[in-house]
């Protein structure tokens, strides 16, 4: 984005460096002085929070890998070794396991924010798509990570999910063989999952850099959804947003630390403290909470292949969102009818999550079908049609005038 601010090297050394590796220029223009809309609310702090989540997972993960043994004979005991014998091993492992949950919590808020304020709309389509790729990679990484402790839910979760992959036409069989490395979930599976679980976060890191790069071309969207018109609409990223983001991150850490220190196993499943046993199937096989909505969609369909396609479709549809939503107005604030459908969609996702943990019978099955239909209807019917017929609320003329105009809207 065009900025009035240009970096000027102050002394000989920085001038010398600037003409060879403009690192200081880059930091100054893209971090410190980066012009950011001044009206961002706290939902915009989750980008920073998510970056911190990724860094936390990578650092704790590297340390865990120093003590973990990726073998079916040793994995479970090596995790207990970390919990009992490694200095502060329990802390590192609880940060990592709860960190995955916090990462997903933050990414859900981040995505719902993007959805409400139209952050995927022209010219930010690529930012959104890169975000979807990150989300997909996160799901794969989390799934593989959950297999590593080699508990009952690790083993049976992996068995169920890899079976599902096998139902896919054409690629199913060879993909299953590549994931398993044998005929069933066993040592080769665990080994490759460990290897990939270590690799994928760095790929996520790379895509995050692209995500931020793409963000820095048009700059941030904002609650009113209007483009920045000039200097009066922005503040420098530092200190304004560094401080605000860090405050939000501290509050986020309070919730994170509550789980780590006072309820570290609340988000996990008891069965994962039983060592994997191929001869004993748990009564209910359920994934981690952050995958439950997709699990509910999968089980809402009587046909296995159709269920799998719908489950993948639930993520695939996100990639097309920029073109499915036909409304030119970005922010949900000025879309009175969209707001209702949006709130309903958030509730729908929460109910799907709840249903994912229930046995799909009777009322639960019926509800999961209704909520699955609404999930897809929101993207495939509501957004394309609503954008054409909805009567928008009057909008402010610019970011700096938005306060005044919002009062006007409220008074109506």
């Amino acid at each position, binding site marked *: 984005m065009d900025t009035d601010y240009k970096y000027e090297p102050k002394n000989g050394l920085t001038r010398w460096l600037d003409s060879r590796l403009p690192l200081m220029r880059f930091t100054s223009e893209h971090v410190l002085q980066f012009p950011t809309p*001044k009206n961002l*609310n*706290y*939902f915009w702090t989750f980008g920073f929070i998510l970056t911190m989540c990724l860094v936390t997972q990578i650092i704790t993960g590297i340390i865990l890998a120093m003590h973990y043994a990726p073998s079916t004979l040793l994995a479970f*005991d090596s995790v*207990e070794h970390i*919990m*009992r014998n490694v200095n502060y091993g*329990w*802390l590192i492992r*609880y940060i990592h396991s709860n960190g995955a*949950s916090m990462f997903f*919590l933050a990414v*859900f*808020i981040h995505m719902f924010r993007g959805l409400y304020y139209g952050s995927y709309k022209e010219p930010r389509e690529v930012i959104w798509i890169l975000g979807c790729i990150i989300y997909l990679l996160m799901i794969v990484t989390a799934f593989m990570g959950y297999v590593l402790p080699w508990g009952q839910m690790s083993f049976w979760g992996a068995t169920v999910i890899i079976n599902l992959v096998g139902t896919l036409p054409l690629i199913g069989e060879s993909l299953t063989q590549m994931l398993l490395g044998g005929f069933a979930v066993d040592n080769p599976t665990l080994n490759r999952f460990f290897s990939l679980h270590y690799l994928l976060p760095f790929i996520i890191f790379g895509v995050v850099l692209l995500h931020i790069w793409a963000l820095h071309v048009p700059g941030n969207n904002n609650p009113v959804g209007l483009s920045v018109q000039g200097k009066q609409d922005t*503040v420098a990223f530092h*200190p*304004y947003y560094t*401080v*605000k983001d*860090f*405050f*939000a991150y*501290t*509050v986020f*850490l*309070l*919730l994170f*630390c*509550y789980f*780590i*220190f*006072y309820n*570290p*196993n*609340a*988000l996990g*499943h*008891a*069965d994962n*403290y*039983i060592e994997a046993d191929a001869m004993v199937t748990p*009564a*209910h096989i*359920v994934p981690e*909470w952050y995958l*439950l909505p997709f699990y509910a969609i999968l089980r809402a369909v009587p046909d296995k292949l159709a269920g799998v396609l719908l489950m993948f479709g639930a993520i695939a549809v996100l990639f097309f969102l920029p073109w499915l939503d036909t409304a030119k107005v970005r922010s949900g604030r000025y879309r009175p009818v969209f707001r209702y459908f949006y709130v309903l969609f958030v509730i729908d996702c*929460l109910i799907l*999550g*709840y249903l*994912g*943990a*229930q046995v799909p019978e009777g009322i639960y099955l019926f509800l999961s079908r209704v909520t699955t239909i609404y999930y897809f209807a929101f993207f495939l019917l509501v957004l394309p049609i609503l954008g054409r017929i909805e009567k928008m609320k009057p909008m402010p003329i610019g970011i700096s005038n938005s*306060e005044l105009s919002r009062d006007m809207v409220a008074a109506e």
Partner: protein
Amino acid sequence: MLKLIKIKSLILIFSVFFVLSNEAYCAGGETYDLIKPGFSFEGPTGTYDRAQLRRGYQVYREVCASCHSMKQLAFRNLSQKGGPEYTEDDAKLFASEYTVIDGFDDYGDSVERTRILSDRFPNPYDSKEAAKASNNGAYPPDLSLITKARSGGYNYIYSLLQGYGKEIPEGIEISDTLSYNPWFPGNGIAMYQPLYEESVEYEDGTFASIEQMSADVTAFLAWSAEPEMEERKRLGFIVMSFLIIFALLMFFTTTRLWKDVH
């Protein structure tokens, strides 16, 4: 400020949602409410009762250990901080009651020696098959992590231990090799009633009722599943206190900084 409240309420909604979805799995198949006696280690500041852990170890050693292993525990754990906190000499004495096969001598014969602090608790059976053969085909689970490995946690273990000797309700069939226990999923458990009044004679003179022994051994198992708990809560208090103060400072900094931006 309003925006802040919005975020907080959102976080609250999400966390309530986690807990709900989590409770949902715990509910699987249980029809009886768990007995919750209220243990000393509950709550954000709860700690283990040393005397109770020691009584619990005695119950494990004299009753449970004949069938159940605790392979994650070493004798040195008995003297570490945050546990039963026996003296090192006492822990050594406990260890020396058991032997272990440790390598070979110069003639290729296996060497048996008494256990030392660094050795794990002994396994009552040589193999899983042997364990099954002695128990009507059921495998007595390892108890190291049992309170974390069952939904309902320590309250489930406590309830289960007291669930014997009850009248079998009509309509429930329990096979001859199983015992009726209302808290066990499916109600038929392969473990026979393990505790009877005065199954052990407590060293500290406490009367060994079934309730007392159940509570004591449950506390011991809760410790063995989470030996880091006391340290975790202690550290948690420091971290949370710091974060609350730091969050306040960051809040004031943010408000001050943004005061002049309109």
